[in-house]
């Protein structure tokens, strides 16, 4: 008897199923690549936001910087960032600090102030005395005692979480975060 046997329909279907399954894996990789591209672009924009505020804070006079971080020893104590948790950069909307053109977050990735759109970038600041931050003793009147540590942070959502407010509701799975530190004095030496 001649036993020449062709593929059966079942065999063909199984092979197609296996092939399709493997391609689904490739499609997942493809989606992941898109997310990586999005995250890279977002990170670049977030860095620009953070570094811009760092340079703006550096460009403040000693007196204004002192006003911004506050002087824990002054009575009454000035408006202060010192010792507080991170606050949105809108806390710095003060014509004395940055003028009336100061832009505060949230922003969208196109650079516009945008509190309702998707993928919002939130910028925050936090300050502490350098002595507190580094757990060192700084005698009053020394240069060290006039130094302040300021953290400028940016929070933004990962791909797939367009409506997430990453400042108010941060989660590692859905959000990105970066922080740029700066140290400066509030006295002219």
């Amino acid at each position, binding site marked *: 008897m001649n036993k020449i046997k062709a593929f059966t329909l079942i065999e063909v279907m199984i092979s197609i199923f296996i092939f399709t399954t493997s391609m689904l894996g490739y499609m997942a990789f493809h989606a992941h690549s898109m997310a990586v591209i999005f995250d890279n672009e977002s990170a670049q924009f977030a860095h620009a936001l953070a570094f811009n505020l760092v340079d703006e804070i*550096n460009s403040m006079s000693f007196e204004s910087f002192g006003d911004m971080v506050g002087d824990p020893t002054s009575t009454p104590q000035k408006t202060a960032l010192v010792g507080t948790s991170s606050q949105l950069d809108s806390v710095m909307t003060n014509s004395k600090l940055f003028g009336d053109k100061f832009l505060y977050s949230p922003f969208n990735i196109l650079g516009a102030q945008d509190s309702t759109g998707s993928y919002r970038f939130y910028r925050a600041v936090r300050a502490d005395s350098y002595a507190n931050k580094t757990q060192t003793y700084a005698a009053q009147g020394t240069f060290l005692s006039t130094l302040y540590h300021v953290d400028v942070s940016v929070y933004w959502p990962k791909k797939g979480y367009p409506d997430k407010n990453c400042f108010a509701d941060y989660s590692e799975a859905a959000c990105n975060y970066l922080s740029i530190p700066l140290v400066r004095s509030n006295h002219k030496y």
Partner: protein
Amino acid sequence: MKIEKNRAFTIIELMVSIFLTITVIASFYKLYEASLKTERTSSIRVSVNLLGEQIMDTLANSMRLIGLNGEIGDLQTSDTAFGILRGTPRGGLGKDHVSFTYLSPYGSPVSKLQEDASGTYPACTFKIFNSAAFHANISKLYIHNQQGIYVTKQIGAPSYSGNNAIVTVESFDKEWSADDGKTCKQRFPAGTLVSGEDFYYALTYTYPKSLKLTYKELDSSGNPTGAENELINFEYDNKANQTFQIPFFVLEFLKESIEGDVESRTWVTTFSAEERNDIVAVRFGFVLLSLKDRVTAKDVNAAPSMSNKYCIFNKNTNNCYELTNPNYTASVFQRVVYLANFRMLEDQVKK
């Protein structure tokens, strides 16, 4: 009787398998097409970002060094042909022509002494940490010590030893009497900052498509002289092979003023000669546009899925750049540059 077992596919089996194969191939084709589109999109985005960062860094680095070689006298003239910030600057909010001229040692070496200077003053020998900018055509050096800036007379080509450039100076065009009687070593200890000469930089943006950053050397009177060198020459004139365009450029200056006891800071687009000493920072930004086709033809008329207004340091979205062709790729670049060296000089003048 023997039964013929040599059985082939039936027509039904063939049709089903052909249908399945076509379906699978069609979906693979869509996947392949999507991959190509993604590759193209990401490659355009990467080139936009690289070019944008490069332009931004060149502008920012040249501005960041403004005032490094400056002295108080540079800030005490109201003649706009002299000083560190020159002419009448013209900033802009995106759709304006922009011009800004300034002195900066960007392009010259900025380094420090590796060892104490040797020799008998004024004939000093300096061993300087080498840098790529330390080329043989440098004509003079600015040496920053506790008293001020020493400016050397014409120097010869440096010799190189390991990672050092060794320069011998015959004498100085500018020196400080407070150092009288001191030796080279006492005047210039290891670690002393050394910089090269200033250049005259000119930033111009001609709306909507030309951005230039050029520099010239300065003569002994401080006037720009010689050939104009280009660091950035970005001009879009609609030629077929041109891909990138800068259709939107912002330049502003942070002016700090004190009236009575009230101090304020505000971003302005120009300042007078008298206000030059109040400038503490510069900010600029631009939209970089790639005109390469990014999406397939049928997507062109699709409604944009998000805002297409690109904004730079701007509260009013009416003054933003609007991308009308979704086939193009745009990105926003923006940077604030704190003029730390200029600020130090200003503080000394105001003191």
